[in-house]
């Protein structure tokens, strides 16, 4: 079980990891409250 979600902040890094893992990228735009 994951302890927490390991969010990335770089799209290039997310795409690189996606290519390597075969997983899809989940992109979440947020606005801090």
């Amino acid at each position, binding site marked *: *079980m*994951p302890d*927490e*979600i*390991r*969010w*990335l*902040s*770089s*799209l290039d*890094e*997310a*795409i690189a*990891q*996606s*290519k390597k*893992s*075969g*997983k*899809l*990228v*989940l*992109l*979440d*735009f*947020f*606005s*801090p409250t």
Partner: protein
Amino acid sequence: MTYPQTFVQTIISDYCIPIQVNNTLDESKPMVAGFRHVWTPDLRVLDADGYELYRWNGYLPPAEFAAQLLAALAHARLRLRQFDAAEVLYADALKRFPTALAAPEAQYFSGVTGYRKTGESNALLHGWHELEKTYPGSEWTVKQNFD
């Protein structure tokens, strides 16, 4: 809160490379412009080339979010013509979250997946019959008509 829920974290961990973009930062402006982002929450599912395959806006409580995410990932796999993966994800969404808001959409595209995978019209008709029977009042039941 949606993300602290373990079952949400598990779906993200199992199937996704997650990235968060703070839309208030100057450094996020290229992403905000590039994705034509306008309102949060704004979730996108992208392929390994950064091509957008599914998107939705708006807050969802944990179980609704989980169902929507599974349906989104399934739809992404369907668009990539990875029918086996799409089939598994749609089945998981429907089994675990049959009353979720995203369930009728999952049932609709589950039928589409079966048809695209096999070329058999019965796969589509069976899926859509289930849709009409289980979710008679849904938007997706309206959309499955071709009269």
